[in-house]
C-alpha cells in the first residue's frame, strides 16, 4: 500500500504537507525567530523586516512566530481528539455492528440524538468545566463528532461481516473476538485511515472556529483561529493579518485531506 501511495503525486504532496506541519509542531522553537507571546507595543503592526519576517500584529507580537507556535497548539488538541474519536468509534461501532440486535438499535437511536446536537453548543458548555481549557475542547470535540465517525465505521463493519471469507472463518471455528481482531479490523484499516485523516483536517478547522469565538484557550494564545479575532478589526488596513492564519489552516488541513483522498482513491478505485 505504501508503494502505491508513493506512486501518486497527490498522496506524496499530502504526506509532505503533513510532515511539514508535524515537524513544525514538534520543533517550533527552532523555527520561530521570536517569542510568540512577547509583546512589543512600540513596534505594533510593523511591516516585514529583519527582526519580524512577517511583521507584527496589533499587540506587537511577531506574526511568523505566532503562526509557527500555533501549529503546536492546533495539533496538540486535534491529534488527541481524533485519537479519542477513533478509539471510541471503532470500539463502539464494531461492538454494535457485530453484536446486532438490541445493542445496534440503541446505537442507532443514540446516534440520531447526538447528531441533532449542534457540536458547537457542546463545546461552549463544556469549556468552563475542566481545569485545563484545552482538555475541555478535546472532550467537546469528541462528544460532538464521535457519532458521525461511528456510523461510518459501523457501515464498514457490517459490510465486512457479511463477506464470504468471514463466514468461512466462523464455520472453521474461529472465535468471534479473533475474527474481529485478526480479520475485520485489519481489512477495514485503510478505510479507517481515510476517515480519520480527513476527519483530522475537519477537527483542525473546528478548533480554529472555537478559538475564533474565544473558547478554550487562554486569552492571547497563539492559535490560527484566535489570530483572526484581532485581525478582524483591521480588515481594511491590514488584510494580510487575516490571510496568513487562514493560509496556515489551509496548509495543515489540506495536507491531511490530500493524503486521505489519495488513500481513498487507492482503497476504493470504483472507476477504471
Amino acid at each position, binding site marked *: 500500500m505504501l508503494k502505491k501511495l508513493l506512486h501518486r503525486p497527490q498522496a506524496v504532496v499530502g504526506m509532505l504537507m503533513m510532515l511539514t506541519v508535524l515537524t513544525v509542531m514538534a520543533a517550533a522553537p527552532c523555527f520561530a525567530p521570536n517569542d510568540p507571546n512577547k509583546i512589543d507595543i512600540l513596534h505594533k503592526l510593523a511591516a516585514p523586516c529583519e527582526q519580524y519576517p512577517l511583521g507584527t500584529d496589533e499587540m506587537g507580537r511577531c506574526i511568523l512566530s505566532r503562526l509557527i507556535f500555533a501549529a503546536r497548539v492546533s495539533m496538540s488538541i486535534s491529534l488527541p481528539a481524533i485519537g479519542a474519536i477513533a478509539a471510541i468509534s471503532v470500539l463502539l461501532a464494531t461492538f454494535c455492528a457485530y453484536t446486532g440486535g438490541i445493542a445496534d438499535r440503541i446505537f442507532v437511536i443514540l446516534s440520531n440524538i447526538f447528531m441533532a446536537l449542534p457540536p458547537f453548543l457542546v463545546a461552549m458548555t463544556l469549556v468552563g468545566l475542566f481545569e485545563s481549557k484545552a482538555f475541555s475542547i478535546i472532550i467537546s470535540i469528541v462528544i460532538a463528532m464521535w457519532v*458521525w465517525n461511528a456510523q461510518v465505521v459501523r*457501515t464498514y463493519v457490517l459490510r465486512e461481516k457479511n463477506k464470504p471469507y468471514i463466514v468461512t472463518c466462523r464455520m472453521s471455528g474461529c472465535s468471534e473476538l479473533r475474527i474481529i481482531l485478526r480479520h475485520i479490523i485489519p481489512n477495514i484499516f485503510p478505510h479507517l485511515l*481515510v476517515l480519520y485523516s480527513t476527519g483530522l483536517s475537519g477537527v483542525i478547522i473546528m478548533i480554529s472556529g472555537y478559538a475564533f469565538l474565544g473558547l478554550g484557550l487562554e486569552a492571547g494564545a497563539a492559535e490560527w*483561529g484566535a489570530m483572526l479575532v484581532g485581525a478582524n478589526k483591521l480588515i481594511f488596513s491590514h488584510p494580510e493579518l*487575516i490571510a496568513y492564519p487562514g493560509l496556515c489552516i489551509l496548509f495543515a488541513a489540506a495536507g491531511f*485531506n490530500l493524503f486521505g483522498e489519495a488513500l*481513498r482513491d487507492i482503497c476504493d478505485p470504483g472507476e477504471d
Partner: protein
Amino acid sequence: MKHILSRLLMLAVVMFGVTLLTFFYTSLSPVDAAQALAVRRYTRPTDEQITEVRHELGLDRPFASQYINWLGNAVRGDFGDSYNTGKPIIEELSASMRPTFAMALMSLVFTALLSIPLGVLSAARRGGFADKTVYLFGIVCMSVPNYWIGFMLMIVFAVNIPLFSIMGADSLKDLVLPSLAIAIPTAAANIRVFRSSLIEGYNSDFVLYARARGISEARIAGMVNRFALPPLITLLGQSFGFTIAGSAMIEFVFSIPGVGSMLVTALSSRDTVTVNACVLVIAAIFVAVIFLAEVVNTLIDPTRRSKEGAYAEKTAA
C-alpha cells in the same frame, strides 16, 4: 404510512433526548445561572442574594422537576423570559431566527447551484482537466473554515471593490456574501459525493441495457439523475441543519444578529433558559429538514432503504 409514523416517533424521541442532554450540559457548568444573574443585579452579591435569585428562577428544585416544567411550557411555545434581558425569549428567538434562516436558505440554494452542475461536469469529463481542476479547488475549499472564506470574500468584494456591505442583515443582498462563504466548502464536499454517484450510475448494468435498447442519452441521463440525486439531497438537508446550528462564526464576521450570536451571548452569560430554548428550536429545525429530505428522496426513488445508513454509506466511499 407506517414508515412515516415510525419516523415521526423517532423524531419525538430524538427531540426528547436532545433537550434532556442540553439541560444536563447547561447544568454542568461551574458558574451557574443564578450566580451569573445575581452578579449582574447586585455586582457583589451576598450568598443570601444568590440563594434568593436561585429560588426565584426555580433552580433549587430537583433536576427532573425543572426539566418537566420547562418542557411542559416549551411545547406550548412559552420559553420563559431571558435571564439576561428579561424579555420573552420567544420574541427574541423569532427575531434572530429570521436572518439565520434566510442565510441558511440562501446558502442551500447556492450550494445546490454549485454542486449539481460541477458534479455533472466532473463526472462527464472524468479524469480530464475540468475534473482535476474542480477536484483541486474542492480540496482547497474543504480545508478552510467557512468564516475565513467569508473574510476573503469580504476583502475582495466589500473592501477592495465596494459591491457588498460588510455588516448587517437588513436586506437579502447583505446575506449574499455570508451565504456564499457557507456554500463554498459545503459544495466542495457535495461535489465529490454527487460525482461518484453519477459515475456509479453510468457504470451500472441498467444503463448498459438501456443503451442496448436504443434509449436516448437524454432519457438515460434522467435515469442516472434519479439514481444519483438522493445522497446529494440528504447531504443538502444536513448542511442546512448545520448552518443553522453553527452559524455563530459567520455571523460574527458579518455582524449578523442571528441565532448563532444569540446562542453565544446566552452561553457566556449563563442565560440557560435562552440556551435551552435555542437548542430546542435548532434541533427541531434540524430534524425536520432531514425528515423533509427523506420525503423528497422517497419521491425520487421509492425503493430506497431507510436513511439510517445513508450518510454513512455515502461517506464510506
